[in-house]
């Protein structure tokens, strides 16, 4: 069942087109994450859905009913702002009850509803505190509670975790997922952090420069990106421009641009002259010895970067001359030193053509 539908929505600010002919459907109970670099149009998209901007063209519908003409206060869509936007002159309880008041909910029920939602976000009994006395993480949960107390159809989250340190962010991600599951609300979450997007989302929507690059479940957009932008944005990648040297029914032989190294891909090339070859660092195998085979090379470790959970290596594969080698990014648990020789293999079926 579809919940929110965007149909050819465009938003222009003078000469600037922030959102360009964007269409998608967000289903009920879905955790939908819009991710992209700054200026890609993700925040504008959120504001369009919330009602703070009106589309220049196109329509937005909620459960089949168009809402583009409705003011924010008339939509059953609630938002958590990036800097929380808590009312400084009201207590936590009053902040949360504000929406209840504005929507003429029976005053008798306010106290219990406030208490319930505070339990939901894990901050019971702080109705009487004031926002300025709370930590960032607490404020964020109050902002969430304030939006959720109204039991909206759709919950919007505008980079809510950006201001938190990593530990808190990781914990809040788990919390957010849990709350969304418990309440069954449709969540639309905007972030520039691709890790966050991949871990939270049921559907990932990658935006760039006002257009949608790809929409799909996290594994799909990560392992089968549609184009170079998505490939590079969602984590480390090895992407190269390449030309087709030889193609048969199973494999395609590629010449990598500015290099004499040959790659073999299991994918079918498109008709154009240049292809983009792509594979993730985790698919690059590193070993001390290995037999010769397709996509197996001698390489030297150029550099290593210890990032805590894994080690990231840059590997130089020599070409026929000094200048035409190839550098790959690889992940490994094993320890290698810079300058060490290593045997590298990339399974052809993991080399995709974008």
């Amino acid at each position: 069942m579809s919940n929110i539908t965007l149909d050819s929505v465009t938003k222009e600010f003078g000469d600037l087109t922030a959102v360009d002919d964007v269409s998608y459907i967000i289903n009920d109970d879905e955790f939908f994450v819009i991710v992209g670099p700054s200026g890609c149009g993700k925040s504008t998209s959120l504001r369009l859905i919330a009602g703070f901007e009106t589309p220049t063209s196109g329509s937005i519908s909620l459960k089949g009913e168009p809402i583009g003409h409705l003011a924010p206060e008339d939509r059953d869509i609630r938002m958590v702002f990036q800097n929380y936007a808590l009312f400084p002159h009201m207590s936590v309880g009053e902040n949360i009850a504000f929406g209840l008041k504005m929507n003429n909910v029976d005053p008798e029920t306010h106290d219990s509803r406030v208490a319930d939602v505070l339990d939901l976000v894990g901050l019971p009994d702080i109705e009487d505190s004031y926002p300025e006395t709370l930590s960032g993480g607490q404020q964020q949960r109050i902002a969430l509670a304030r939006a959720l107390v109204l039991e909206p159809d759709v919950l919007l989250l505008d980079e809510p975790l950006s201001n938190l340190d990593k530990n808190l962010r990781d914990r809040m991600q788990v919390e957010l997922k849990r709350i969304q599951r418990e309440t069954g609300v449709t969540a639309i979450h905007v972030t520039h952090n691709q890790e966050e997007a991949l871990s939270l989302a049921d559907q990932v929507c990658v935006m760039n420069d006002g257009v949608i690059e790809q929409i799909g479940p996290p594994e799909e957009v990560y392992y089968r990106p549609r184009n170079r932008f998505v490939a590079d944005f969602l984590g480390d990648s090895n992407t190269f421009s390449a030309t087709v040297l030889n193609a048969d029914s199973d494999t395609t032989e590629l010449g990598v641009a500015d290099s004499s190294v040959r790659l073999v891909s299991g994918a079918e090339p498109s008709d154009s002259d240049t292809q983009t070859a792509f594979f993730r660092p985790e698919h690059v195998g590193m070993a001390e010895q290995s037999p010769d085979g397709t996509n197996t090379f001698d390489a030297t470790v150029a550099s290593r970067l210890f990032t805590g959970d894994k080690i990231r290596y840059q590997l130089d594969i020599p070409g026929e001359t000094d200048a035409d080698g190839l550098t790959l990014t690889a992940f490994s648990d094993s320890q290698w030193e810079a300058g060490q020789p290593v045997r590298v293999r990339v399974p052809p079926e993991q080399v995709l053509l974008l």
Partner: protein
Amino acid sequence: MSGRIERLAWRLAAGGVLLFLFFPLLLVIVISFNPDGFVFPPSGVSLEWYASMLNDSALINAFLLSVGLGIGTAVITLPLVILASVGLRNEGLPGQQYLENVFLFPLMVPEVVLGFALLIYFSSLGLTGSTVGIVFGHIMFTTPFALQTILAAMKGIDTDIEDAAHDLGAGSLQTLAYVTLPMIKPAIIAGAGYVFILSFTNVTMTLFLVGSGTVTIPVEIYQYISFSIDPTVAAVGAVLIIVSTSVVVYMDRVFSVQEISGF
């Protein structure tokens, strides 16, 4: 060594300037208790001037009128300015920057000219010497000051907070009432105090607007000084000094003076 002398020199210089500023105020207060009037040194302490002041109905009436005018002016000017600030804050109005500056024009016009212009204007409307006329004049005079204070405070509000209010179901009016205005409460109080004092102490422009039945306290004092120097004036002066000082100190608790001065 030179450091200490230098510090002392600075203290003396700054202190001297401050003393200069306060000198007449202190003198007035001293005189108000001096049974010999203006002659120094005082031979004792006496409250006769205060008694004389309280017996002078013209002075009492003028004082009450000034208080009423001050409150009335504040009550009318503040809502006008608040409404206009909300309007001025929205983007999209062409020439809005200019409009803001236009409202500051009265500051550039000398009070004599303002007063005179209003005199001519009111005489053709039959409003000379009326209380209404004085209120109008004061409204026009205090608007730029109030506008500076309120508009600056409004511009400082995080727009996300108002968006949040809308998002939660509040209409424009409700947002204004429950969120925006409460958030700038200090500025509103300061603005009101500021308007009150400006109206209460205004002399030059008001001189052109008063009539025989409607005299404000500053004008009354001015006339006393011009025509007959009576130490009763000192008692009035001392009272006004206390009143003004109290209002300012109270305002400062709410809203730091540095922002009000508008410079």
